[in-house]
């Protein structure tokens, strides 16, 4: 925390040191140039106007506007150029750039600055390019976008100069785009305009597409809006390129959404895969373990919010082990209290755990109320990366994908590399043999159930970041998680991963085509039909028993 802060301070100090001296130099130069506006020679004035515009100093816009509206004067006494404002019989004087008060004067003490039409044009052009030269990059982007919307012929040369001078990598493309639009609208030769169209074709935003499409529109007489065939050809080509690029980005965006949904499903289903795979127990209260994890996150965040707000950003990290412990403890209690009496009767287990899920839901509803609870995103999980085609990759979704991979890897390590994992797999393969080899199957069952529930709790932490935390949170995911487990094959992490990703991605791609609800129905029906073909999932465990 402190490192971050001090780093920020250092950076700020650097900016100050670097920027102060040039600013001062620019200012004094600008003051000299303002003084030049009082010259008798038009050519000198025009030079001064363009020079002022090039400085990018604050207040230049005001000076030029004042000149246009004829509020600039020369004070006869010291030949100083001043900004004057009429009040009653007197004129109040200000320094043109800083608007510092310079006292008052009579009209007879002042001479109005000279102005002719050529100068007016120069002033207007300078004003148009002014914000493009602003020292603030955001201002420059804004100005360039304004130009893009309605480019004027006079702006072409300004944009060219600005573009040559622009160093900021974020601003350059925006200015380049505006320049291309301006050249397209006012370019002298069709070749130059066609080239501008090609430059525009490298941008994917809808505004550019609309601009290019407008070139190809035919009017009622069958004439194209754009007369030059060269430009039309270029526009068609650019549009095709844009469409192709947008399709690719769109695909990537959908893929991301699908993988994101898949990772959520994976988190929700992975605990179920463990309990069902190892113990053959269908835990209908699994969704409630997810819910408990989400509410644990809520409680921890509330505690941190009230007692130590500085640590808000790490509340989610604290919540992960806590949710694992709380949900895991619930899991062990459920196993010891209920499920162990029902082994070998999977359908009864299903009913008992369903009853349990009702009790847990009502319990949470009684304690926390039936309404949604607000769980905030920490700052490092807010925001998004915007793709070229307009698709958003939000950071919370990205983190959840990362998180689900971490959970999957950790679980795989527990199953493959620890003594507990070995015992668990032994019990999965042959319970009685494992028992004969001295494994306490009852203990393994309790720990396995605790592990599965704990992972569900961890999933709840993740879900609290993207979904509403309400007593029905678990219910929303239970059918989906079952689909994942059944589809991927039970007792198999790889199968669960495969099932979750397939269903997630398929769902998102169908959704674009048919709408969210129909997509979900298609997926459900597809899984039902799929089960017919492979009754124990894609990655079925191989065994010899007839009755499994």
């Amino acid at each position, binding site marked *: 925390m402190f490192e971050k802060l001090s780093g920020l301070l250092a950076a700020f100090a650097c900016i100050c040191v670097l920027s102060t001296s040039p600013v001062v130099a620019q200012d004094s130069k600008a003051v000299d140039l303002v003084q030049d506006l009082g010259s008798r020679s038009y050519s000198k004035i025009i030079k001064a106007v363009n020079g002022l515009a090039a400085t990018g100093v604050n207040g230049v816009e005001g000076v030029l506007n004042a000149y246009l509206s004829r509020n600039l004067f020369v004070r006869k006494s010291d030949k100083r150029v001043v900004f004057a404002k009429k009040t009653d019989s007197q004129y109040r004087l200000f320094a043109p750039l800083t608007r510092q008060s310079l006292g008052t004067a009579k009209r007879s003490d002042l001479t109005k600055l000279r102005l002719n039409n050529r100068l007016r044009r120069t002033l207007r052009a300078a004003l148009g390019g002014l914000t493009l030269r602003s020292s603030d990059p955001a201002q420059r982007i804004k100005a360039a976008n304004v130009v893009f919307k309605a480019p004027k012929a006079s702006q072409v040369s300004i944009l060219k100069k600005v573009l040559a001078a622009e160093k900021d990598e974020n601003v350059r493309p925006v200015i380049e785009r505006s320049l291309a639009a301006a050249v397209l609208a006012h370019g002298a030769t069709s070749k130059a305009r066609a080239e501008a169209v090609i430059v525009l074709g490298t941008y994917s935003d809808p505004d550019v597409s609309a601009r290019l499409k407008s070139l190809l529109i035919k009017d009622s007489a069958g004439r194209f809006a754009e007369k030059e065939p060269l430009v039309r050809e270029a526009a068609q080509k650019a549009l095709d390129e844009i469409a192709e690029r947008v399709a690719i980005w769109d695909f990537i965006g959908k893929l991301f959404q699908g993988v994101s949904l898949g990772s959520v499903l994976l988190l929700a289903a992975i605990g179920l895969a463990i309990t069902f795979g190892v113990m053959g127990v269908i835990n209908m209260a699994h969704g409630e373990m997810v819910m408990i994890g989400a509410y644990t996150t809520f409680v921890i965040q509330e505690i941190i919010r009230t007692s130590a707000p500085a640590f808000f950003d790490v509340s989610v990290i604290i919540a992960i082990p806590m949710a694992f412990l709380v949900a895991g403890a619930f899991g062990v209690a459920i196993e010891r209290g209920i499920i162990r009496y029902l082994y070998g009767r999977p359908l009864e287990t299903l009913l008992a755990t369903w*009853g349990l899920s009702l009790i*847990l839901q*009502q319990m949470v509803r009684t304690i926390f109320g039936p309404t949604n609870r607000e769980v905030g995103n920490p700052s490092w999980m807010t925001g998004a990366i915007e793709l070229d085609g307009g698709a958003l990759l939000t950071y919370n979704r990205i983190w959840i994908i990362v998180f689900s991979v971490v959970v999957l890897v950790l679980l795989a390590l527990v199953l493959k590399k620890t003594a507990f994992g070995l015992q668990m797999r032994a019990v999965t393969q042959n319970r009685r043999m494992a028992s004969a080899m001295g494994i306490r199957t009852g203990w393994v069952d309790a720990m396995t159930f605790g592990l599965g529930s704990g992972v569900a709790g961890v999933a709840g932490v993740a879900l609290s970041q993207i979904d509403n935390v309400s007593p029905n949170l678990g219910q929303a995911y239970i059918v989906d998680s079952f689909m994942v487990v*059944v589809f991927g094959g039970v007792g198999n992490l790889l199968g669960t991963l495969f099932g979750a990703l397939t269903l997630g991605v398929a769902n998102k791609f169908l959704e674009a085509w048919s709408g969210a609800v129909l997509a979900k*129905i298609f997926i*459900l029906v597809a*899984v*039902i039909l799929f*089960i017919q073909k492979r009754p124990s999932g894609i990655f079925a465990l191989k065994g010899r028993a007839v009755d499994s």
Partner: protein
Amino acid sequence: MSMTQSNGPFSFLYADKGGQIFLAILFGAAVLVPILNLVLPASSVFHMPTWVVSLLGKYLCFALLALSVDLIWGFCGILSLGHGAFFALGGYAMGMYLMRQIGDRGVYGNATLPDFMVFLNWKELPWYWHGFDNFAFAMVMVLLVPGLLGFVFGWLTFRSRVTGVYLSIISQAMTYALLLAFFRNDMGFGGNNGLTDFKDILGFDIQANGTRVSLFLASIVALASCYLICRYIVSSKLGRVLIGIRDAENRVRFLGYRVEHYKLFVFTLSSLMAGVAGALYVPQVGIINPSEFSPANSIEIVIWVAIGGRGSLYGAALGAILVNYGKTYFTGALPEAWLFVLGGLFVAVTLFLPKGIVGTVPSFKAMTRSRNSRSETAKTATGETDG
């Protein structure tokens, strides 16, 4: 389940003492309820208000639904967590008939389109709504739609030997998919709100006392006849095979029986009965909406059966009535507590009453009897020990 020497059409009932009592109670209710409601004046203490008649009728529909689940779960080991779907489909078929009966008395006064279609700016009746103004056609649909879905679903699953929890899960997925589908306005079944505001049935005002009592009687007749059908099936040779499938499916298959055919038959029959229950339910409660498809509802049906006692048929009906009475009571008196009670019932029944109420009472009797007889033998013949 012991078979008696069969002579006479109802010989299968001879050994079924619980069933006889059950049918007698149904008959008694069929006589008593109309008298209490229609004959006695409203001022009388014994007068039964019409809403109570409808409430009882609703319980009977649930009892029929539970009976259909018990037939497949108690006798064939198929735990369907999607039976609410068949119930709801039967209900929707009936609801569509009742919607068509409204005619131009709806809010918008449109003679050809139900209100919600006018609201959605639909111009003409979708093809699948045609024919539902005919009662006979609607009744055929009440049977056909759930039956067809049950047949197709069963054919797909049993043929590929999907059993146990897998079947439970995909039956749940089926009803969930239907829930999502019926929530869509585009489906043409009223979306979220479902079908309601019914006016009359077969020309009789649906709110009238006489209609309500008739619907109640129809529910009793349906329940009693379905009970007889179920009892007949489970006491026949077919029933023996079903029980064999429940207890050891593969052995039955190895003996040469086509297990999937038996399962498919009984599953389809069960879905038909669930459809009938739904069709009787809708006019008595006055609404059908997609929430009937929710997986939670279907699981609740199973708990009715489990509480009453699976594999006894009348136990399922008893369980349905008891649990729903409890629900009516608790949601009125202690709405917060209902889910605790229902959840607690699920846990307690599976842990402590695996045979349900009707299964536990006789075994409790047998236990006390054997204890008594043992103490008697201990008194009279000391020294002798039984192995």
